Each structure stands twice: as C-alpha cells, then as structure tokens.
C-alpha cells in the first residue's frame, strides 16, 4: 500500500512536518504567519474583505413593503389594504373551519409519517387539484393528457412551468397583461424567458382595453407564450366576459400561442368554483395545450403553507408523461420535493365530499363578504358625493379594486389617513370591514377633491 495512505486520516510521509507547521501557524501572530512561505491573496478573508462587499441593499418589495410600513405606523385608525390576504369583519386573519378539521385529523393519525414526498409531490393532491380546476369530467383528465406536479403555491408553479418552457419550448417570449401582479415579470425573467406586455386595462373606463388586447396578441409571433389570469385579475379586478374569453381563445389558437393560466382565486372571485374555472375549461375543451398554475393560498386560506400545483395539458398521454419527467429535473435542483403539510390538508378536504361541501360554503362566505364590501364602499362614496364614476368598484371582481387613484393621491391617503395600499392605486377589499369603510371613503373623497 502507498505509504501516504496507511489510514484514512493520515496525510503524507511528511505528516510530522505538517503537524508542526499547523501548530506553528496557530501559535504565531498574524504578522509572523505572513512571513512564512504561504502567500496571502489580496482577496483573502484574513484581511477582512468579503467577496460580497459590493452587494448593495435591494429595494423593498413594493407589495410586501406596504405591510412593513403599516406595521411601523402607531396610528389607531390605520388600515392595511396592501397584501391580498383575507381578513374577517373583525380585521383578523382567518383559518377556515374545514382546514382546522383537516389539520386535527392529520395530527391524530399516528400512523402518518412525514418523510420526503416524491419529487412531484402527493399523487392524490395532484389528481384532486387537476379535477378541481379542469372539472371531474374533463376529457384531458380522462385521456391522461394532463400532468400535475405539486409546487410552492402560485409563485412556485409559475416558476417551475416557466423554467420548463425556457428549456424545452421553441419560443422564449411570454406576453403578460398590462398591468399584472408585480412579481410576474421577475418570475419569468429569472426562469430564462423574455417578457413583453399586451394591453389589458383601460384607465379611462377602468375596464378592459379589449381592442388593444386583441391587437397586441394578434401581432405576437406565432407560438409565443401568453399569461392569462384565469379570474379576478390582479391588480385590476377586471375580467373578460365569457364572450370575450371565447374571442381570446380563438385568437390564441389561430396563432398557435401557448396559454399559461395563473389561477390564484378559483372560488374566491364569484363564490363558485366551476364558474371561476370557465375560462380555463374553455381552452381545454378545444383539445389544445396549456399550462395552469394553481394556488390554494387564498381560496383555502393556506397562504404560508405554500400549496399549489402546476398542470400541463398535452395533446397526448405519452407526451404528458415525458413532460412530467422533465418537470422533475427542474424541481430536484430547486427544492428536491415539495412541503408536505399544506398539500396534505388540501387532499384531506378535497377527497371527502362533506368537507368539500363545507369548504364551498366557507369560500362563498368569504367571496360574499368581499362583494358586500364593494357595495358598501360604492354606496359610501356616492353618499359623500365624491366626484367621478365609482361603478368600477362594484363591476370589478375578486380581492382587489383598481381605484384609479394616482400615486400622489395614494401618498396623501397614507400620510393623512393612514391608509396603506400599493402606489398603483390597488386596494385589497379583503382588508376592509363595515366599520372601516367610512374611513376609507373619507380618505378617497379627500384625496380626489384635494389632490389631483
């Protein structure tokens, strides 16, 4: 055997020398050490320089930064209308009863073991999620043309889907609506896609710029990816009508564009799960392909548990299977396998018909409260004679209202009325209650009449 390797922990035949040198180094002072044969590079940690010295502080995330600012404010009348997280009439976060029930069931099941999930997550969760969004009778599911993988909420599903597209799809450009959720462009850019926009919102009508949308998608290169909000568009709350969806579908299919749906509010928008999935189902019904990112953050109130799913609807079953194998290669070096807790809760609820029904009732209640807040705010502004047409408040749908207020007016509302919202004029209706609507109405009224 080679003399150098007589035992696993010994070094070379000059091991005695090495040990002596090591001892000398550690007994010596810094200056003594630098006089020995070892040369220190200028970037050595020894001199106190970090290789990351040049890193500058990143700006606050505009959306999450709102809550940071809100938390700092000592005012008793402050209102957080920033982040899209549901609040009760009492302004408290809500854990659904059916979720609590599911949690207890999981806790009491002593046989449950929390080992690594498969890379694609919980199989049952994936199947049930696909059923939920595509419909139990979906031909795509029946024909095994859908692959569904568990991901980290909507963000994670979008990211995994986008990384797959950047690697395997021939078109690397994604078209996103103007405006859209602030994190969308970052997700797609970091995934390796290039981002373009299509017109969507019309500030003059506070509704859809449908002509602009058709023109922009119509002139997109064939095969381009198109991001579509399945329902309850964030931040505007403006959704296409069913007729407009049909036109969008025809245009997309005729140009062989690839639809990528972001479904973050199924059931939360209208209160009805099937209704909120209509846009997606329309596309699947024509036999074509699409990507769908599903989130359970809002509709099951599972926000921090990060539960979501990415589905890819393919033309053939063997293709879906190949796509799934490649999705695994995206996931493994990102987080290996997804978190077990939230998805277990979802699967528990979705597979039990009683719990599923309970869920739909609680979901309807949340959606109902938001619709009621819209009505109350609209009435309050009318009662104050606030100038302008505020009907968009009741026409828009979902968690958010795009008020149409400009950033100066928003700044004013924050300063004078302690209203916290994003500078684009978006307010989270979920953050309102009957008690706080008057304060918000006062703030809007003041902003509109005193600032332009």
């Amino acid at each position, binding site marked *: 055997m080679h003399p150098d390797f007589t035992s696993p922990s010994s070094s070379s035949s000059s091991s005695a020398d090495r040990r002596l040198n090591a001892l000398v180094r550690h007994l010596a002072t810094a200056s003594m050490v630098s006089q020995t044969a070892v040369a220190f590079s200028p970037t050595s940690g020894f001199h106190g320089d970090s*290789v990351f010295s040049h890193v500058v502080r990143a700006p606050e995330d505009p959306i999450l930064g709102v809550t940071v600012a809100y938390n700092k404010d000592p005012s008793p009348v402050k209102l957080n209308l920033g982040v899209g997280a549901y609040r009760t009439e009492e302004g408290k976060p809500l854990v659904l009863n059916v979720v609590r029930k599911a949690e207890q069931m999981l806790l009491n099941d002593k046989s449950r073991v929390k080992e690594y999930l498969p890379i694609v997550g919980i199989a049952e969760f994936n199947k049930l999620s696909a059923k939920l969004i595509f419909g139990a009778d979906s031909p795509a599911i029946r024909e095994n043309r859908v692959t569904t993988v568990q991901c980290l909420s909507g963000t994670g599903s979008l990211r995994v889907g986008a990384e797959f597209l950047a690697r395997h799809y021939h078109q690397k450009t994604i078209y996103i609506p103007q405006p859209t959720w602030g994190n969308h462009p970052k997700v797609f850019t970091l995934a390796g896609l290039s981002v373009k926009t299509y017109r969507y919102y019309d500030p003059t009508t506070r509704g859809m710029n449908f002509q602009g949308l058709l023109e922009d998608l119509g002139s997109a290169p064939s095969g381009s990816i198109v991001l579509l909000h399945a329902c309850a568009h964030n931040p505007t709350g403006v959704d296409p009508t069913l007729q407009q969806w049909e036109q969008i579908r025809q245009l997309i299919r005729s140009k062989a564009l690839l639809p990528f749906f972001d479904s973050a509010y199924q059931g939360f928008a209208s209160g009805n799960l099937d209704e909120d999935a209509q846009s997606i189902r329309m596309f699947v019904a024509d036999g074509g392909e699409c990507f769908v990112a599903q989130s359970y953050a809002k509709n099951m109130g599972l926000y921090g548990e990060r539960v979501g799913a990415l589905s890819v609807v393919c033309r053939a079953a063997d293709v879906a299977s190949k796509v799934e194998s490649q999705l695994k290669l995206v996931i493994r070096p990102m987080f290996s396998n997804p978190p077990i807790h939230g998805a277990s809760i979802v699967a528990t609820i979705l597979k039990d018909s009683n719990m599923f029904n309970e869920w739909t009732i609680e979901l309807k209640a949340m959606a109902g409260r938001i619709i009621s807040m819209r009505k109350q705010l609209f009435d309050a502004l009318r009662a104050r004679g606030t100038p302008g047409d505020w009907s968009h408040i009741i026409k828009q749908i979902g968690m958010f209202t795009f008020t149409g207020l400009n950033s100066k007016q928003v700044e004013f509302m924050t300063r004078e009325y302690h209203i916290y919202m994003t500078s684009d004029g978006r307010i989270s209706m979920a953050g309102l209650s009957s008690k706080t609507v008057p304060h918000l109405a006062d703030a809007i009224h003041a902003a509109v009449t005193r600032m332009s």
Partner: protein
Amino acid sequence: MDRTAVVGARYMSSWWRSVQPAPKDPILGVTEAFLADQSPDKVNVGVGAYRDDNGKPVVLECVREAERRIAGNLNMEYLPMGGSVKMVEETLKLAYGENSELIKEKRIAAVQALSGTGACRLFADFQKRFCPDSQIYIPVPTWANHHNIWRDAQVPQKTYHYYHPESKGLHFAAMIDDIKNAPNGSFFLLHACAHNPTGVDPSEEQWREISHHIKAKGHFAFFDMAYQGFASGDPEKDAKAIRIFLEDGHHIGIAQSYAKNMGLYGQRVGCLSVLCEDEKQAVAVKSQLQQLARPMYSNPPVHGALIVSTILSDPDLKKQWLKEVKVMADRIIGMRTALRGNLEKLGSPLSWQHITNQIGMFCYSGLTPEQVDRLTNEFHIYMTRNGRISMAGVTTGNVEYLANAIHEVTK
C-alpha cells in the same frame, strides 16, 4: 368547434414531441425497485432517511409535541420573504455557537430556505448574480444533486479530489493540491460533517490545514451541513469544522437542513446564511437573497419552521431533541460496529475498518457496481450502485443477513 381553433390546436401538437423522457433519479429509483420486490428478506439500504431498529421511519417525540402545541393556535399567514425570524435565530446559534459574537454583531445574513437543497440553490443563484465570473469546486464524490444545483444556477463547476478509493478514506494531499491550484477566489463546497456519500470526514487537524490553504488563496468556503448532530450525536462537535473556519476569519456561507436531524424531511425546513463584514453588509446581502427567493416561491413554508422554533426556543423540548438526536446517531454507530464485526467474524479477507472509521448516515462500502447488482439480484438488498450503504437501513434484525451477503459477493 370552429376551424381556426382546430387548426391552431393541431399546429401545437408538435411542440412537445421533441421533449425527451428524462432519466430516473438514481437514488429515488432504488426505493421504487425495493417497494416492488416481493421477497420477505428484502433490505433497503438505499435512501438516506433514518429508520429505527425495526426498520420503521421515526417521528421524534419532540416534534409530535411541537405539532400538538402548534395545531389550532396560530394562523397560516405569509411568512416574510426571509422566513421565520425566530427559526433563523435559533438555527444560527446551532451553526455559529450559542453565544457567537458574530450573531450579536448582526454580521450574518440569513434566510429560511427549502431544506438543504433550497439553501444551496439560493446560494448558487446569489453567487451567480454577484460573483458572475466565479466557479464552484465540488468534491468527488458528492451528493449528486449538488452538480444539478450549481448547473441550474449556471455557475461553472470544477471538482476537487476528496475520496481515496484504495484506502476508503480521505485523499488529503490531492485535496490540498487542488485547493492550492484553483484560481484565487474560487468557491469551495465543503461538507461540514458526515460527508455524503462516503462518510469520510477530515480530522480536526486536517480541517485546520484545509482552512489555512483556503484562506491563503482567498477562496470562499461554502458549507453544506445536512447532518449536524446526526454524525457524532453532538451538534457542537459536528460543527467543529465550521467553528475552525470562523476562528480563522473566513467569511463563510452555510446551508443547514433539519430534514434528518429533526426528522422533518417532507416539511422542507432549512436555512441559508452568509457571514459578512458588518451589519450593513449583512442587511444588504439578506435583502438580495430575498430578491432571489421572491421569484422562486415568494416566501417559505411556515409549518416546519414553526416546529423548529417551538422546539429550539423551549429549553425542555430542546433538551429532548438533543437526546433523541443522540439516540439516532448512537444507533447508527452501533450498526457500524455490528456490521464490521459480523464481516470480520465471517473471516472476510478484506479490511472493513472503514465501516467504523466513516461517520454519519452513509458508508462507502467499496463494493463495485457488479457486486451491488449481485446483492440486489441474489439477496434482495437495495443500495445505490456506487456501493453507498445507508446505515440507517441496517437493523439488529438484518445486519447478519447483510454481512453474509456482502461476504458472499466479495470473498
């Protein structure tokens, strides 16, 4: 359905035809094959998840208690992008020391991450963004996913000598040479303890030399610590390499995981930390790590983090955890002794001392792929083809059978 829609749909059928089926994951494929095997004698020493002496997975008592306390009491709101502050605080203490000055001086940028994988990936992305000309040196061999992580982050990778097959130990001189020959300012991936897959760790003295040479070249030391507490049974002891580097003044990075040492595998709880020059730098670095997390998953999962912070911030629960970790580590050390003992009793002509020299969950047996195949086909013993045995899968019930089989294919 109108014609334009049909044409469009058919046109799209070609998009995925060129997608190739991806190869199966080598490690997870072993368990799949094991599950499909009907033999009553089958043994799974493939995947690295702890098993008790009955071969059953374990949920730690301290974890069960923490879950009881958590359920029904809290909401499920979004964590901040950097994760649970409490969990991160406690986690840094484990790595840097309970009373670490560095923590007091707020010099550590740290965020909750998706277990060890997520921590490594976040760091790799950060390295790519802020040191775009750098490359990462990865030991041979290493956990296969390390290569995938830095590749997907688009950081060029090189390897350094680590395992010495002839001695089944550390190829120390060659490792030092590689450190010296790497361009100044390279990034080096180090396994803090219980090297995966070999179980071969440098001695304390060797760590000091490694630290010296890395410092001399101005390299960046990034530690993957997936087994703290699990290796020796003592978390402080298992953090020794890191503490040496800290003493020597390196500005290190660490990926920490609670998958094995708290048995939280599927919860995906971990932490990425980067030691900076000062508090201001730490704030800047943390903000940039968050900028990388936001477009990946927005904010990390809350449940596992709550379990960790509940346990570590309660002195009694923490004590219980330390006890339970020691039990796991001791059982594995006991199985190493038993396996080696059995092989020697059988009169094997080969040396098996590496089984007890190596540490942690894995033993690099030295078996060839052909011998591994024989173990699987003739004896229904499942392990990865590199000869890596997961000692966690060895029990008093199967150690003799395993030793006999190994002896059969190697005599």
